[in-house]
């Protein structure tokens, strides 16, 4: 039994149109996505804007309606919103992208971090305060600052306060939606290190959603690449980076700027080749609608979206 299992997930958004404003079409934000998560591991979901990676995360936790498919958490079917019971909501938490807008500016840090505790655990004022201070200590924010407001903190500190809130109920799974995209590199390093530390301490599982392949490579055990709502490739971090099979994956990897200026020319050449290959072999990798094919296994861990043979 997998820890989290997503089967053929589809999330469609209606497009309104016509004179009567009826639904005329659907945007297939997520179009048939399946994956499994093992406890204690980090699973990366990579894609560019419009790939459906965030929608996938939001659908699992219940922030978007699931059109069809199945989500199993520890073997229990939690596809339906009603099935997302108290335990599920306690076990699965989310970290958002923007530390500037995801914390209520009118609430003190104490209230922000204690909010989930108040919903799920009956604690006295003293106990609650103690717990919040412990949590702040874990995320390296001074426990003395519980009466401060979010604007008194830097971006990195705010993101860590968001993490403190997310881990308050000792969740099992954290869905992190672009958790470091809005942060400076040095702050990003703080948050990433810290996410890894608490993962070890609390045996957390991460669904790590990001557009930044460098960060994903650093953080994740397994990676999926999404394009227009579908998976184009799925595999271990090694599979994806050392042996990318799909042209879109190759293109993404080629696009990452190389931090060594001596590799510059090589990198440009490589990128040019990949772009050429992308143009020439587009029809081998995408169907007539420009969407990815179904996944075919090429090894135990590695799957690629290719047309069926024959």
């Amino acid at each position, binding site marked *: 039994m997998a820890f989290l299992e997503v089967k053929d997930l589809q999330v469609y958004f209606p497009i309104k*149109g*016509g*004179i*009567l*404003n009826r639904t005329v079409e659907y945007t297939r934000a997520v179009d048939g996505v399946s994956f499994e998560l093992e406890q204690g591991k980090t699973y990366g979901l990579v894609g560019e804007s419009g790939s459906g990676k965030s929608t996938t995360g939001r659908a699992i936790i219940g922030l978007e309606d699931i059109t069809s498919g199945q989500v199993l958490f520890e073997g229990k079917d939690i596809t339906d919103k009603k099935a997302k019971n108290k335990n599920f909501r306690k076990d699965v938490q989310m970290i958002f992208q923007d530390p500037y807008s995801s914390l209520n500016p009118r609430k003190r840090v104490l209230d922000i971090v204690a909010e989930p505790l108040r919903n799920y655990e009956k604690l006295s004022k003293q106990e609650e305060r103690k717990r919040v201070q412990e949590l702040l200590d874990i995320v390296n924010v001074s426990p003395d600052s519980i009466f401060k407001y979010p604007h008194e903190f830097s971006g990195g500190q705010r993101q860590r306060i968001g993490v403190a809130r997310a881990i308050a109920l000792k969740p099992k799974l954290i869905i992190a939606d672009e958790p470091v995209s809005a942060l400076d590199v040095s702050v990003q390093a703080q948050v990433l290190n810290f996410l890894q530390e608490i993962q070890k301490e609390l045996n957390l599982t991460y669904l790590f959603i990001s557009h930044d392949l460098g960060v994903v490579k650093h953080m994740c055990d397994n990676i999926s690449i999404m394009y227009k709502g579908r998976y184009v490739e799925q595999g271990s971090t090694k599979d994806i980076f050392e042996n990318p099979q799909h042209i879109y994956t190759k293109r993404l990897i080629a696009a990452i700027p190389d931090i060594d200026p001596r590799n510059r020319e090589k990198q440009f050449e490589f990128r040019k080749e990949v772009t050429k290959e992308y143009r020439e072999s587009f029809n081998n990798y995408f169907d007539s609608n420009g969407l990815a094919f179904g996944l075919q296994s090429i090894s135990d861990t590695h799957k690629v979206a290719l047309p069926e043979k024959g």
Partner: protein
Amino acid sequence: MWKFIVRRLLVTFPQIVFLSVLVFVMAQFMPGDALTGLIDPNISPEALEIQRERLGLNNPWYVQYVDWLGGLVQGDLGQSFRFKMDVTALISERVMNTILLSLVSLIFTYLIAIPLGIISGRYNDSPLDSAITGYSYLGFATPIFIFALVVLWVFGFMLGWFPTSGSVAPGLDAGSMEYYISKLYHALLPGLSIALISVVSTIQYLRSEIVDTKQKDFIITARAKGASENRVYNKHIFRNSLLPIAAFFGWEITSLISGTVFVERVFSYPGMGLLFLESVTGRDFSVVTALVLLFGIASILGALLSDIILSIVDPRIRIK
């Protein structure tokens, strides 16, 4: 854009139907009916009842509503018991006066509001801006009839520049050049009174649009292109800020209605607003009902106009 306009028109229709129901229900609650005031008080109640039956006044409300609506469509708004004439004829006489007055005050409003709004927005937080904004607060706070009284007293009585009542000088041939000039001359002072109050919302709206647009990124792009400060304001900031003002035009009409009601009273200007007040105080309910319906329809059409203008001037709505 066409889809948007058609959809917008489709919404307007039920709005008007709903308004008519509301007005009808309101009319039902008023004391008396179409016969009250028409009839000799000595007539016997039995005879009255026969008349009622004949006129359909005892029918259920929805039948009466349909009858009333049928009359409306044919231009039959009932009888005014005070003037002893058809409401339709009574109103149509006044409508032209009010339209003229509205037009004059609209022109005054924009002539005053746009330059002041631009100055206020461009030089925000300068003494000039503070003065204009100060006036705006005064305008927001002062009831329109007090303003109108002051204007009337200063320009009408003290300086004697303008006529103090009526819509046209007596004794002129309708249709002659003098007649039209006199009509316009009579509308100027009340028009200005309305404008002096209605400008304040437009000034403040324009001011905040300009202050907002000033800080947009594309203004920096314009400066980086080498556009002079005047060009930046004229070609980029004003144009983009005037767009919502253009859309505000329809709503302006709605606010004019409330303006005319009081100002026409102060200037004894024979328009719909004056008629409305006279009818209310004289309990001439059929006229009140008709006017409320007209004012309501004007407001709904004003809002419709706003949305249509916006859809035409804003490419983000136009191209879809």
